């Protein structure tokens, strides 16, 4: 059991590039904590610093209050599952799992007992005498998990453990990992680039970009109140739609036309500012199907993605009827560039095809407004 504190942790590589900048957060005891971000955002570097495979350039990592910066990886009592699994190919599954215990010089019967116990949990019993080369991807993944949990580490680290599995197995192992973590209650840090994994697994999620933590919160917080445009675009699939817009006196002027905003929006403070408005695909709907609907606008369907349970439409809003105002913005609010495409989710039983013209509306209370320059969320940071 352990609480991990990142105290202004930075990492600079020999080449001079900063991989992580001033990471400052706490992973609580027993928590399932996710580090997520696009490739090169520094999430794996952070993980390697926890386990001791990378030096810490600045700052301090503390586990239960003790500084571990200088501690050798073998003395940290942490276990890690690598993206490549990193199974020892010359050892059988049993030897692989017992390797950390042998290094810890445990008694033979104790090693056997613990390996058998872990094998039972992960359903590895029939595979114990096989070599890794004889295992399927999912089985290798399980062995890697087994080798990690057999030590009963105080911290459990996973570096994209599912990215080498096919889609179906990935969903299955995702559930297994979540169940296992809950059962063991070990503080877990999990690195992934897949926002779905992050949302499903995490107690809390940290979103990283270019070495900087963008936002930390529960999946719900990240989804509902993203701190900035990057987080808003990263969380949610398909991504949030971003529209150039301008704030007026009573609402926001969107490319599809003006939209009155509820009184909870701090309009007076933002008056006449250019903003980026974000609307998630699921917050669009057909007129008359929701009580929370806003203004109606016409649009043309340019492609249809039917997924069984969901139907996503890529639509192009028809040019606004409202005359554009003469402002020197790059993209004139109230009109829209030729290429503006919205992704909207509609009920899957609708019979729609490419080229159809439909009317759409959206839930105005769910609109997010971001600073056009900094990307900061106005609504969250007022």
């Amino acid at each position, binding site marked *: 059991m352990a609480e991990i504190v990142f105290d202004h942790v930075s990492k600079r590589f*020999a080449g001079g590039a900063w991989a992580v900048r001033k990471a400052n957060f706490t992973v609580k005891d027993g928590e399932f904590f996710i580090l997520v971000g696009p490739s090169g955002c520094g999430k794996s570097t952070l993980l390697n610093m926890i*386990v*001791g*495979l990378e030096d810490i350039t600045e700052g301090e990592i503390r586990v239960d209050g003790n500084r571990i910066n200088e501690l*050798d*990886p*073998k003395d*940290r009592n*942490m*276990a*890690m599952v*690598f*993206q*490549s*699994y*990193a*199974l*020892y*190919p*010359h050892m059988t599954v049993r030897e692989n799992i017992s*390797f*950390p215990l042998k*290094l*810890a010089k445990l008694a033979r019967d104790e090693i056997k007992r613990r390996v058998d116990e872990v094998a039972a949990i992960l359903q590895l019993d029939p595979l114990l005498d096989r*070599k*890794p*080369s*004889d*295992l399927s*991807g999912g089985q*290798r993944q399980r062995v890697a998990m087994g*080798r990690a949990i057999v*030590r009963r580490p105080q911290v459990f680290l996973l570096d994209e453990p599912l990215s*080498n599995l096919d889609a179906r197995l990935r969903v299955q192992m995702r559930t297994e990992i979540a169940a296992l973590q809950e059962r063991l209650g070990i503080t877990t840090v999990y690195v992934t680039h897949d926002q779905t994994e992050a949302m499903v697994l995490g107690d809390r999620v940290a979103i990283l970009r270019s070495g900087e933590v963008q936002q930390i919160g529960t999946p719900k917080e990240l989804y509902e109140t993203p701190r900035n445009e990057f987080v808003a675009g990263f969380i949610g699939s398909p991504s949030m739609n971003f529209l150039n817009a301008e704030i007026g006196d009573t609402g926001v002027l969107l490319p599809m036309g003006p939209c009155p905003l509820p009184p909870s929006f701090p309009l007076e403070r933002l008056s006449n500012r250019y903003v980026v408005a974000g609307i998630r695909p699921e917050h669009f709907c057909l007129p008359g199907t929701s009580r929370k609907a806003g203004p109606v606008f016409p649009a043309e369907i340019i492609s249809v993605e039917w997924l069984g349970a969901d139907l996503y439409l890529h639509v192009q809003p028809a040019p606004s009827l409202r005359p554009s105002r003469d402002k020197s913005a790059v993209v004139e609010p109230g009109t829209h560039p030729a290429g503006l495409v919205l992704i909207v989710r509609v009920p899957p039983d609708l019979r729609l095809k490419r080229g159809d013209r439909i009317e759409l509306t959206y839930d105005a209370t769910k609109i997010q407004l971001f600073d056009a320059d900094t990307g900061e969320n106005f609504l969250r940071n007022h």
Partner: protein
Amino acid sequence: MRIRFAGMDGFLGALGSLLVVTYALLPVIWIISLSLKPGRELGNARFFPDTLSLEHYRTVFNDPQFPAALLNSVGIASIATGLSITIAIFAAYAIVRLDFRGKHWIFYGTLAVAMFPPISVVGPLFELWRTLRLFDTWPGLILPYLSFTLPLAIWTLTAFFREIPWDLERAARVDGATPSQAFRLVILPLVAPGIVASAILVFIFAWNDFLFAASLTSTDRARTVPVAIAFFTGSSQFELPTGSIAAASVVVTIPIIALVLMFQRRIIAGLTAGAVKG
């Protein structure tokens, strides 16, 4: 690996294999045949001996210098191989895993050493060894063998180390291994095929060398088999020791063949399969 032949391709393939095997083995078979012919038949130009005789083998082992030379050969080649491989393992690991100044310099420098024609260093070495009292000693031969085989061993092992995923060593460290444990328990077993392969190459070099052994030895103290064979005399001074030479050649070839057969199964590649996905 099993190669299957079918149809016309198969016929040509089989013919080709037969040609290659014949080309490679014919001289060997001829030497064996010569070594088994009695002395009077040596000049009869027949491929197979009419009568089999072990007289040349007896001559070889009764020659006082041959058993001594055999011992020298085994000792010198083994020690040179052991040292060369040990040094090469550490050098190759460092070249692959560590970042240090002058790394490429060392890497290509070793290759440059291997490109020196040995004949160009034999003369100076002779003088130097006499001064250093290394002439006609085991170390006197082991040292040059070391310098000429190290590049080959380092290059071969570097290729094998490159194949090993870094993650394995990192995983071992996280699992609680010290750097040396990670090396011994995880990395070394995985490069074993490379170690065996380069050890055999080094051993063969030392075992077969004639140039250094002929120039840097003068007595049975350090003279190795290839040189000893050259010093064979016939039963009279008018007789060529062809039979004895053939018999001795067969005798010195046996350890090499045994070595290769013994380690053949270990040399197979693909031991790292299954370490990582891919």
